[in-house]
C-alpha cells in the first residue's frame, strides 16, 4: 500500500526524464526558422537546399536536445526514428511529384478528338492529331501478349504447386526467378534476333507481343503460384478422398477456388508490361496511320508514340515547346492511366473476392 502511494506521489524511478510531447514540433520550428534565415543570408536560389538544410537541422536539434535530457539511448532512438520517417518522405515526394507533373503536363492534351484521331499526316509542329492508332496498337499487342503468356504462366504455376518435386521443379523455380530479372531490352533483342534476323520477318505488332509475353510469363507464374498456394489443402484432400483424379481436382476444385486471385495476378502481369517501351522500339516499328492488323506491317503503340513524338525515333523533333510536346505528354498520361486502372482494378477485385474469415 505504501509502495503504491509513494509511486503516485513522486515521479517513478523506473522511467527516466523524457522530452515533452511538443519537443519535435519545437525542434522543427527552430530548424525551419534557421534554414529560412540561412536562405536569405547566403542568397540560395530555389527551395530544395532550404528544405534539406531544415531537415538536417531538425535532426541535429532534436537529437542533441534528447541527448542532453533523455540520455544516449533515447537520443539514438529519436535519431533513427526521424531518419526512418525522413526516408519515407524522401521516397514518396518524388513519386508524388512525378504523378502530379505528368498529370499537369498531359491533361491539357486530352480531348475527344485526341482519342479519336490518329497522327496520319500530322507533323511534329502541326496542331491536332491523336493517339487512336497507338491506343489500338497497345490494346492489341498487350492482349496478344496476355493470350500467349497467361496460359503458360498459369500452367507452370500449377506444375510448381501441384506436381513440382525434385530437380526439374527446382530448376523451373530458379529460372522463373532469374527470368523476372531479364531486362526488357534483352527480351526485345532476343525476339529481334529470332523473328526478324533469323526468320527474316519485317517488324509487326505481334512481334512486340512476343517480347512482352516473355516479360509477362515469370510475373504470371510467380503471382499465380502464390494464389494457388492459398487454396487450402483440405479442399484438395476432400476431393481426393472422394476419388476424384488429380487433374479433375485441379480443374474443378483448385482453379475455381483461386479464380479471383488468378484474375488479379493476370491483371497485375498485364499492367507490368503495358508500359514497356524498349522491346517495341526494336520490334513493332511505328506508323502514324491506323493499322488494325497486328500480324502484318508496323504498328503504333502508346509508348512508341511518345518515343516518336519526342523525336527519339527519327532523330528530329519539332521546335521546343511545340504541339508535339503536348501530344507526347498526353499519350504518356493515357499510358499511366491505363496501367493504374489495371492495377487498381486488380486490387479491388482481390479485395472484393478475398477469402472471408469464418
Amino acid at each position, binding site marked *: 500500500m505504501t509502495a503504491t502511494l509513494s509511486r503516485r506521489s513522486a515521479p517513478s524511478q523506473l522511467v527516466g526524464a523524457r522530452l515533452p510531447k511538443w519537443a519535435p514540433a519545437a525542434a522543427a520550428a527552430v530548424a525551419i526558422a534557421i534554414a529560412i534565415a540561412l536562405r536569405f543570408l547566403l542568397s540560395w536560389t530555389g527551395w530544395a537546399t532550404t528544405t534539406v538544410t531544415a531537415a538536417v537541422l531538425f535532426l541535429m536539434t532534436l537529437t542533441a536536445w534528447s541527448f542532453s535530457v533523455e540520455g544516449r539511448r533515447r537520443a539514438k532512438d529519436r535519431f533513427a526514428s526521424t531518419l526512418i520517417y525522413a526516408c519515407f518522405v524522401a521516397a514518396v515526394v518524388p513519386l508524388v511529384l512525378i504523378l502530379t507533373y505528368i498529370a499537369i503536363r498531359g491533361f491539357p492534351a486530352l480531348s475527344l478528338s485526341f482519342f479519336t484521331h490518329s497522327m496520319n499526316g500530322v507533323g511534329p509542329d502541326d496542331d491536332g492529331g491523336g493517339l487512336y492508332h497507338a491506343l489500338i496498337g497497345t490494346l492489341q499487342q498487350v492482349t496478344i501478349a496476355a493470350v500467349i503468356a497467361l496460359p503458360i*504462366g498459369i500452367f507452370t504455376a500449377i506444375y510448381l504447386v501441384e506436381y513440382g518435386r525434385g530437380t526439374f521443379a527446382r530448376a523451373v523455380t530458379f529460372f522463373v526467378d532469374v527470368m523476372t530479372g531479364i531486362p526488357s531490352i534483352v527480351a526485345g533483342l532476343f525476339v529481334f534476333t529470332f523473328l526478324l534476323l533469323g526468320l527474316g520477318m519485317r517488324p509487326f505488332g505481334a512481334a512486340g507481343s512476343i517480347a512482352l509475353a516473355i516479360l509477362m510469363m515469370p510475373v504470371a507464374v510467380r503471382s499465380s503460384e502464390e494464389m494457388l498456394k492459398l487454396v487450402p489443402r483440405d479442399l484438395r484432400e476432400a476431393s481426393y478422398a472422394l476419388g476424384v483424379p488429380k487433374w479433375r481436382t485441379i480443374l474443378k476444385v483448385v482453379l475455381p477456388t483461386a479464380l479471383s486471385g488468378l484474375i488479379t495476378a493476370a491483371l497485375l502481369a498485364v499492367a507490368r508490361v503495358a508500359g514497356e517501351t524498349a522491346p517495341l522500339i526494336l520490334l513493332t516499328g511505328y506508323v502514324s496511320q491506323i493499322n488494325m492488323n497486328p500480324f502484318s506491317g508496323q504498328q503504333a503503340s502508346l509508348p512508341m508514340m511518345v518515343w516518336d513524338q519526342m523525336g527519339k525515333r527519327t532523330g528530329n523533333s519539332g521546335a521546343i515547346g511545340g504541339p508535339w510536346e503536348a501530344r507526347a505528354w498526353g499519350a504518356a498520361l493515357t499510358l499511366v492511366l491505363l496501367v493504374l486502372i489495371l492495377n487498381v482494378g486488380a486490387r479491388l477485385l482481390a479485395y472484393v473476392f478475398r477469402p472471408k474469415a469464418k
Partner: protein
Amino acid sequence: MATTGGTDPMTDERPGDAPPERDDAVRAGVSEPPGEAPSAGGFGIVHAGGSPTPDAAGITGRSVRRGDRVFLGLAAGSGALLLVVMAAIAAFLIWQAMPALTAQSPWALLTTQSWNPGATPPVFGIAALLFGTVMSSVIAMVIAVPIAIGVALFISHYAARRAATTLGAVVDLLAAVPSLVFGMWGLYFLIPKTQGFQSWLTDYFSWIPLFNAHPRDAGGNPVLDGATGLPLSLTVQQYGKSLLMAGIVLAIMIIPVVSAVCREVFLQVPAETKDAAWALGSTKWEMIRTAVLPFGRAGMISAAMLGLGRALGETIAVALVLNSGFKINWVINEVGGDTFASIIALKFGEASGSELGIPALITAGLFLFAITLIVNSIARLIIARKKEFTA
C-alpha cells in the same frame, strides 16, 4: 496400396475393384482407387454428398491415367518452355553477336571507348558502356537501398496497421509506373530543376574526384584559362544530363521494388524475437537493430540485388536522361554517359546502316544479359539459402 485411400472412412475398399486399374492409377500418381470417382457434378461440393457415387462409367482407370498424363504434360511442358526460352535467349544472342564479337580482338572489344561499328575497320567497345552501366547503378543503389529499407521499416514497424496496408499498396502501385514516364520526368523536370544542385556539388565537393566537374576538350582534359592557367569552371546551365541524374532517376524507380521485398521480410520477423527485445527494455530502434535487421539481412541483400538487376537493365529512362559520349568519365556530375541498355535503344535506328551495326548492339545486349543473369542468380541463391536456413 497403403496410400490408396484405405485410411479414409469415406472410401470403403471394395473387393470388386480390378487390380490392373488400380495399378494404373498408382503408377500415374493418383492416390485413390479410380473406380470411385464421383460424377462431374459432384466435384464442386465435395463435402456435401458424403458417399461417393459408385457410377464410374465415364471414368475408367485408363481415362484417369490419360487425363492426368495430359495435365501433367501440359503443366510440366509449360515449365520446360520457360527453360527453353531462357536457353534460346542466350543461344540466339550469342549466334547473332558473333560477327561483332569476332570483328576485333577481344581486348579491343573490352577496352575501346567509342561506338563506330560502321567505320572501316570497325571501332567499337564496351568499356564506356560497362562503366556507365555500373556507375549509374551503383549511384542508384547508394541512394535507393538505405531509403528503401527506411521505407520498409516505416511501413512495417512505424505506421499504424491500417495505414500500413494502404501505404504498402501505394508503393506497389508505383512500382508499375512505366519507365518511360520516369525518363520524361527526369528530362523535363528533374534535370532543369537540379542544375543548381549539380553546380553546388562542384563548388563545395570538387575535392572529391567524383564531383570535380570542368569543361573538357576532346581528349577529356580540363580546358585551362589562357591567362591564369587554371581549369575553367562550368556555368550552371552547362550541368545536366549526367550519370548522377541517371542514378537518381534509377533510384526513384527501384525504391518501390526494393522496399516491397524488404517489407515482406520485416513483417516475417517472429513476434517472440521482438518481444524478447522489448522485454529487455529496448527502445524501438534497439529492438529493430537487434531483432528485425539481423533477421532480415539476407532478405535485404537479395532485395538490393533485385533492385540492382532492375537498375542495370533499365533502358528508356536512362536513354532519356543521359547524353551519349562513349567516354569513361569518373566525374559523375558532368554531362555524358552511356549504358548497355540505353545504347541499344538510341543506336538502333541508325544501326541497320552498316554491316556490323546490329551485331554490335546485340553484343551489348549479350553483355547486359550476362551481367543481369549473374546478379539475379546471386540474389536468388541468397534467398534460397535463407529459406533452407529458416525452414
